[in-house]
């Protein structure tokens, strides 16, 4: 795990050093300041930006989707213009520059290893120290006369505003959670409404996250499929390919569990009963299993085979749904720990029982039981 993390961090840095050599297409020119030429960026998205968003939503591409940390200009900012802080995950940066459309402002991009603001704040890269360092290295004090930085509110997890002020002279004001609220916030004289302080989790927010729930689950799927085919194909005379196909209903039920755990539960999250994600996922898995079992004629199979299916698949859906806690905007660590404390023994036990039942069903097939 440790090694994996290190590797993941190195990728964005490597990408940055490459990006530094060619001018990114969102840079449309430069603005002369006392601290030198500052790159000016477009506030509209190109096709490449839109494609980048899609790619970063579905897979590992997000780990290389970065911008060079430092100071940028939007419009024609001057010495009194607002300074907005962002992370160097390009999607965070893109959403901010788009929100600043029609405004004259500075963007201070912190080095967060290519991670978005909230996550980086939790990990300690969107931090007090990095902000102080970036204010100094970008010579922000020479570019503007005022001493205020507007940081995304979710950055407050990692940025101690008072400390930044003590160390850099810049006051940190926490702006709206959602960059789209920035124009309204600025118009209101840099005042947030309570609604601007709240993090939302709309159907659309949840849906864009589901590809990254389905992908990791499907990475494990081949192991499950191989195990099922092996057990199904196992005969006293060896592994028979034709018999392996008898495992097909279980493979389909496995896909269904991924679908209910990684897609249906997240999408319908507020409408599924229970607060526990494990229970939500189990319920959705069970509800889907009943008609599916009917279609696949599970009733025609031996009792242990049926029992194994009803025990395992809703549990698999539950386990997968529980992973979504990592993506929501409202699940805390204590809650997830509580779910896992009960959940892990239940998952392990039900997997073991389902496996034994499946073996029993084989023995019945072989007329040993």
């Amino acid at each position: 795990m440790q090694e994996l993390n290190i590797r993941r961090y190195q990728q964005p840095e490597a990408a940055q050093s490459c990006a530094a050599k060619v001018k990114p297409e969102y840079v449309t020119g430069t603005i002369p300041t006392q601290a030198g030429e500052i790159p000016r960026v477009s506030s509209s998205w190109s096709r490449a930006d839109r494609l980048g968003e899609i790619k970063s939503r579905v897979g590992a591409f997000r780990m290389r989707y970065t911008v060079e940390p430092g100071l940028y200009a939007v419009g024609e900012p001057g010495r009194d213009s607002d300074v907005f802080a962002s992370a160097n995950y390009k999607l965070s940066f893109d959403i901010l520059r788009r929100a600043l459309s029609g405004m004259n402002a500075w963007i201070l991009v912190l080095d967060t290893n290519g991670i978005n603001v909230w996550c980086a704040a939790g990990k300690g890269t969107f931090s007090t120290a990095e902000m102080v360092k970036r204010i100094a290295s970008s010579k922000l004090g020479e570019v503007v006369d005022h001493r205020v930085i507007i940081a995304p509110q979710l950055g407050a997890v990692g940025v101690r505003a008072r400390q930044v002020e003590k160390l850099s002279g810049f006051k940190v004001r926490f702006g709206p959670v959602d960059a789209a609220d920035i124009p309204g916030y600025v118009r209101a004289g840099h005042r947030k409404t309570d609604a601007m302080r709240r993090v939302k989790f709309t159907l659309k927010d949840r849906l864009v996250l589901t590809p990254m729930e389905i992908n990791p689950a499907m990475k494990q799927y081949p192991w499950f499929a191989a195990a099922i085919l092996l057990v199904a194909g196992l005969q006293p005379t060896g592994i028979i390919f034709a018999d392996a196909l008898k495992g097909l209903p279980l493979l389909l039920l496995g896909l269904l569990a991924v679908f209910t755990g990684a897609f249906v539960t997240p999408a319908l999250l507020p409408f599924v009963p229970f607060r526990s994600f494990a229970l939500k996922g189990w319920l959705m898995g069970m509800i889907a299993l009943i008609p599916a079992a009917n279609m696949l004629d599970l009733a025609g199979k031996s009792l242990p085979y049926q029992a194994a299916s009803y025990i395992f698949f809703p549990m698999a859906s539950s386990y997968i749904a529980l992973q979504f806690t990592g993506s929501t905007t409202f699940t805390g660590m204590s809650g997830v720990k509580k779910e896992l404390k009960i959940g892990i023994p239940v998952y392990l036990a039900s997997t073991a029982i389902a496996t034994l039942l499946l073996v029993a069903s084989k023995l019945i097939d072989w007329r040993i039981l």
Partner: protein
Amino acid sequence: MKYLANVTTIRLITDKCVGCGKCADVCPHGVFVVEGGKAAITDRDKCMECGACATNCEFGAIEVESGVGCAAAIINSIIYGGEPSCDCTGSSGCCG
């Protein structure tokens, strides 16, 4: 949407609170209100233990065991040891 009831570790030490309202400003779930010169917790179950309030309370009036509310991170920390840390490849709520 609220998560499990009665699990959050958040604690407001009212004696230390000066009512500056920083906590209410940074909380993404409206857990705090300032009434009569002191902060108060409205609904504990809304707290997701992100820690923004405690980080920005200059008076040490808020304590919370903050961390990532992410099953994968916690499972990894159980298996491999260490603090739960989101590796941020799997999500974008924590990571978006």
